[in-house]
């Protein structure tokens, strides 16, 4: 609706009047810390250190095995959560739409309860569910299948799976809610047209619903990627700020936090800054997809 967008003569500064508060806080709490981070990454480790050390920290990262472990874990964790959550949420939204209309709000609310819960509480619940042999997960799903109970939080093969399960449990309902809202916004006309052209339920879904949902799905995916890279609380409570056995659950934010514990602020900032190109790539990718869908 371009009608709202217009140039008003003689009022060049007006948009900036509205933008000013936002820009002020943007400068104060984003740009300055960001620049501070770059500066810090070029300085020696330690509290209040200002000695310039150039690219030392970055060079150290290139040989830091833990750094690459953290990076790899974060990538796997993030991708896995998107790949699992998006299709699952689509399916759940489809089911919610197919079920009784009256029940829909209650069911949606129940499903997204985990998203309303502080991550540390979720992690605690998960700690209990994963807890050794007696945890619900082992008792309900693993042991009945005749498999040895999994030591979810100690076995390096399963720590990352555990973290992914936690994020799936946390976000699926919330994303279902967004997709459901998107589905309800699709004009009925489309479906009526599709019905005239016949075709199965599946074809309707594939050719009508899915293309219309593209902006929603893009939003959901971007949200999950960003959240994946900023996960802290969940892993912090589950693994106590460590990376777990053999660092199998070490994520980038956890690693940054570990560095700050020992006042290695230079190294910590270098890790953060080194992730920026990745974020720029994600930004470019999402803008590109947006343009293609538009």
């Amino acid at each position, binding site marked *: 609706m371009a009608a709202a967008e217009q140039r008003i003569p003689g009022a060049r500064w007006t948009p900036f009047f509205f933008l000013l508060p936002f820009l002020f806080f943007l400068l104060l709490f984003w740009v300055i810390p960001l620049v501070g981070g770059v500066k810090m990454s070029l300085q020696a480790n330690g509290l209040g250190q200002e000695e310039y050390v150039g690219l030392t920290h970055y060079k150290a990262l290139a040989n830091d095995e833990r750094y690459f472990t953290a990076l790899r874990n974060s990538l796997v964790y993030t991708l896995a959560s998107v790949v699992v959550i998006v299709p699952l949420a689509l399916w759940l939204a489809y089911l919610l739409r197919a079920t009784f209309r009256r029940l829909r709000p209650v069911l949606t609310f129940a499903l997204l*309860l985990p998203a309303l819960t502080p991550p540390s509480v979720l992690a605690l619940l998960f700690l209990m569910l994963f807890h050794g042999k007696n945890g619900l997960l082992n008792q309900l799903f693993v042991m009945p299948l005749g498999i040895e109970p999994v030591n979810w939080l100690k076995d390096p093969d399963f720590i990352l799976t555990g973290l992914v399960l936690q994020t799936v*449990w946390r976000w699926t309902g919330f994303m279902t809610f967004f997709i459901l809202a998107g589905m309800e916004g699709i004009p009925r006309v489309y479906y009526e047209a599709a019905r005239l052209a016949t075709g199965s339920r599946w074809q309707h879904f594939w050719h009508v619903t899915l293309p219309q949902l593209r902006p929603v799905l893009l939003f959901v995916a971007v949200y999950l990627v*960003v959240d994946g890279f900023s996960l802290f609380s969940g892993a912090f409570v589950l693994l106590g700020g460590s990376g777990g056995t053999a660092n199998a659950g070490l994520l980038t934010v956890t690693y940054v936090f570990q560095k700050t514990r020992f006042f290695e602020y230079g190294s910590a900032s270098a890790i953060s800054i080194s992730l920026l190109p990745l974020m720029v790539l994600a930004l470019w990718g999402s803008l590109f997809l947006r343009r293609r869908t538009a």
Partner: protein
Amino acid sequence: MSDCVKNRHAVLSLLLLGPFLLAVLVPFLWMALGMFKTNAEFFQPMAKAFFPANYDWQNVAELLEGRSVPFWAVFGNSLIVSLGQALGAVALSAAAGYAFARFSFSGKRVLFVLAVALILVPRQLFAVPLFSWVNALGLSDSLLGVMLPGVVSGLGVIYFTQVFRQIPGEYYQAARICGATELCVFWAVLPLAWPALLSYGMIHFILAWHEHLIPMLVLTSEAKQTLPLALAKLYDVSQRTPQGVQMAASTFAVIPTAVLFALCHRKFKSSLSEMLVH
């Protein structure tokens, strides 16, 4: 489609949803029931002792009396920080979104991309320089130091840009014909966007309520802590807090956001439906 087929489909869908509902609700139920349990009961295999032997409010009393953490103070701090952040973010984002939606000006594109970039750079990664900057501003160990950095929201700006784009141009013209200044036009169209204002405020409140890392760095004294910090302390094994108390605190931590969402649920969904597809 006949009604019979439709009903059958609805029942089938409900059955398929069943396992997912259980997977979500059982842990929450177990958490809420946990606040009545003694430690011995709590550590029994879940299937055997899901319900407590008797409903004893002692754990709740212990929590509210503040024997482990100053619970009321912590709860209040969390409310103040989250409310302040939500109000601030709504005000800043709505004004910025209005500017992006309504005016064309030089530098608009660059600023908008910057706002998108904001979403993509997790604040947690820059926690350390942010923390030292907050210190330099003299805001260390104060609630303001947690609140203010959280009012900048890229998501909010994009959301409100979209919202104000959808308000038909006639509204703006009508307001202008009446000779209103730009600020008055903004005030005049604001009520049209109130479901969006409410929805975004709610989302931001929830995000602020969950924030852990920044408060952990900024807030040092016990009286200033927010809920996630207090919870982490309660969960800490070395504190030997009774499990029931931990469960009571966890349950109380969920209630505000759950109630808020339940209240705003409908408005939020319809405002999203209108926007997401177009």
